């Protein structure tokens, strides 16, 4: 090339029109990573145990596997594969019963929290500023209390039972969902397409159900796993403190508490480690899935913890 011939024209075909380039490459499909798969396997396993546990458990939750040879904290042996607990009950069976109780209570509480939180949160976002402010202030007061302390006060007041636990956890965690769905609602509410619907003359119901909700559903759903973890930890912690599920009913958190003596005597670690491990694997498994999903839906959701 020299300076007299500095003008370069690419070869072209007159038939080709130069259309607008596409905005972005099509998004690739979501695939679970290795840790995501691991999490899924763990969660599926525990779900199966929770659903079928009471039917396939070798013993009843308060049945003694060796009624003729009563002795606490028996070592694992044929007939009681994880040994026995402080009252000589079969640990494996109690874990299986506990699965349905711990997971069932947590799941129902989380669903309840979502129902309350989403209705009030999105409702607050689309309400008049005054209503919104009152609801938000009340919610802020709830949020500024440590959850376990609230739980303690409620349990102290009305005593502990499974419905009380579900209701307490549901209401306490509803405040978190309220804040999340309200901020989502606020974010979506000021989008142009919502204003366009308002300018069209659409009613509030249409705005909430057709414009805001479809856009808030997915972020809320990805948050569900995270909330479930916290509720499981909350319920288990209460049980561990002796204020949750009451004996003789089996529940993972209270199992740790009942058998804590095993650590002191040093006879066997299984009575404590088995239920603790059950909770840990379940929550870690959920978290692994949540992390994977949120990594794909832009920004690690669990960073918002």
């Amino acid at each position, binding site marked *: 090339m020299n300076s007299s011939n*500095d*003008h370069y024209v690419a070869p*072209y075909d007159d038939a080709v029109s*130069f259309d607008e*380039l596409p905005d972005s*490459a099509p998004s690739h499909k979501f695939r679970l990573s290795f840790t995501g798969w691991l999490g899924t396997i763990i969660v599926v396993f525990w779900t199966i145990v929770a659903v079928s546990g009471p039917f396939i458990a070798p013993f009843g939750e308060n049945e003694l596997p060796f009624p003729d040879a009563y002795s606490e904290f028996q070592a694992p042996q044929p007939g009681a594969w994880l040994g026995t607990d402080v009252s000589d009950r079969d640990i494996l069976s109690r874990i299986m019963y506990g699965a349905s109780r711990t997971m069932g209570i947590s799941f129902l509480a989380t669903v309840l929290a979502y129902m309350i939180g989403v209705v009030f949160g999105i409702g607050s976002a689309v309400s008049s500023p005054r209503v919104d402010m009152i609801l938000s202030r009340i919610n802020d007061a709830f949020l500024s209390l440590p959850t376990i302390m609230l739980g303690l006060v409620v349990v102290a007041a009305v005593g502990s039972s499974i419905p009380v636990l579900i209701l307490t956890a549901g209401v306490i965690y509803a405040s978190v969902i309220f804040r999340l769905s309200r901020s989502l609602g606020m974010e979506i509410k000021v989008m142009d*397409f919502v204003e366009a619907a308002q*300018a069209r003359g659409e009613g509030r119901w249409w705005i909430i159900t057709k414009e805001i909700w479809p856009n808030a559903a997915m972020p809320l759903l990805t948050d569900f796993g995270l909330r479930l973890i916290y509720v499981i930890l909350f319920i288990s912690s209460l049980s561990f403190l002796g204020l949750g599920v009451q004996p003789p009913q089996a529940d993972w958190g209270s199992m740790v508490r009942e058998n804590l003596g095993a650590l002191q005597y040093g006879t066997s670690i299984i009575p404590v480690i088995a239920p603790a491990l059950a909770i840990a694997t379940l929550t870690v498994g959920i978290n692994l899935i949540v992390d994977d999903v949120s990594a794909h839906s832009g920004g690690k959701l669990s960073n918002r913890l």
Partner: protein
Amino acid sequence: MATHLNPEKEKGDAALNKGDVALNDVTLNDVIFETRNLNINAVRGDGSELPIIKSVSFKVRRGEVVALIGESGSGKTTISLSALGYCKPGLKFAGGEALLLGQDVSRMATDDLRPIRGEKVAYLAQSAAATFNPSLRLNEQVTEAPVLHGSKTQAEANAKALELYKALELPSPETIGTRFPHQVSGGQLQRLMAAMALCGDPDLLVLDEPTTALDVTTQIEVLKAFKSVIKEEGAAAIYVTHDLAVVAQIADHIVVLYNGEVKEAGPVDVIINDPQHPYTKKLMNAIKPLPESGQGDDDTSDHLRDDAALKAISVSAGYGVGKDGKPAITVLRDVNVSIERGKTVGIIGESGCGKSTLARVFAGLLPPFEGELKLDGNPLAASLSDRSRDELRKVQFVYQMADTALNPKQRIKHILGRPAQFYGNANGLSVKDQVNKLLEMVELPVQFADRYPHELSGGQKQRVNLARALAANPEVVLCDEVTSALDTIVGANVIELLKRLRRETGVSFVFISHDLSTVASFADEIVVLYAGRVAEQGPVDKVLSPPYHPYTRLLISSVPEPRIGWLEEAVATDEAASGIAGNVELTSVGCPFVSRCPMAIDGVCDTQAPPRRTADQKHLIECHREINELV
């Protein structure tokens, strides 16, 4: 020419002849930066690669400004960043060379690139607001690169920075460096970024759309500063832009890019005056003609009726809640606009002048606190909630950003079908047929009905956005900067579409834009807003010819022309001298334009509201000067 030299040999020569200044100068004088068959790939989630930049070759010689021009997605920014040996996350160099002063920066390790970046080559980003660290004082950010590289002491760097602040005509150059980024204006920040880039005396400057986000008046100011500084510093530059008019002012060479390939390259006069490649021709054709009188369509009177379709009478509006029922911030003051049936009213002004506020008042989204609105001669309720469904139908609003204006979770058929269904069906068509008809009207394939907005390109989304307004079968469509976010060619096509729709449907348009050329080519009437007041209004031909309001004159003289030498002429005018550096400020006392006006009368313009003068039938100018003084 040196291009035939083997680069390895060239490097060796330079090394061998370190003492030989003459030979070194010959090599340096020639090519500063060159890409040879440069390829860059995007790495996708599954590890596969997609070519983004395909075998691009061009050169930048000392003292030369090379413009990379193309639409979004053409790869111009990616290519320009290769001069710094940098790829955005997710991209990688995939062959070819990027030679900066003979070194292939595309193959260098990050640590080896550090001494080169900021010293040999410097980068100016599109948004200065985002590229300055909000927590560090400006001077530290401007001077840190040369100081850290050891090429200057802090004192030398400070002296250089001061020199640059003066050359870039920044206010109070001695102290501006002690401020934080949020304490200076956008135009100033843009110039400070130039100082930051130039502080290390780089051989090559890379400028990535540095004026795109600015108002036309600010753009002139920044362009002027860039041009003189590049000249004085004797640097070479790569200038990335999509705006041919800007290119004509600043570039020596142009490289036209499309889809990561060079389509045409050559000296600026050849490309501007004699483009060869069809794509370049298409780009040139999309440039809007200058805002001169005599452009408006004359065949738009067929739909006229006795009453104006939409009318604003003495409307004042603002935001927030202040004392005695007035808003905390009053934006619009005493605005009168009448939109005749089948006609288009263009609303023009810089950002902050109240253009969008006026549209929101019409749409009922922002009830005015004074004045009234009329639809077809009947009073129209100020607030959305008080309007009947039929009134709502008649006035439709089109948002600037189709991305946020279309619900991402609804298919196109629902987005278009809902208003058609909601407002009732006048012509007996099924909703599906109406959707198809609307898609045809905006020249989109019928199959798009089943798609989601994110599956469409920017221009296509904007067409859907328009079609949604048309679905209501409206009388008036309010278009808020509908072409501003689009590429030149795409935007020009949308304007063509609007013209056709106006002709066929008899719909009236309110067309809001900061771009006078677009408004001039499309509107019948123009309203020039300044700081919420109507500075001038009237038929296009009248507004775009003398007598002018001083602000209109400033706007007209600020529209860049794709003509070499225009910038020098523009900055030489009186309007430019007094007006281009100012900011729009809302005021309740006097004429808001007083601080930027070359003809301001002391003691009058700053204390009294300007009178409304009639220059000609329907042509109004609000100014203290007599009409004959404004010619």
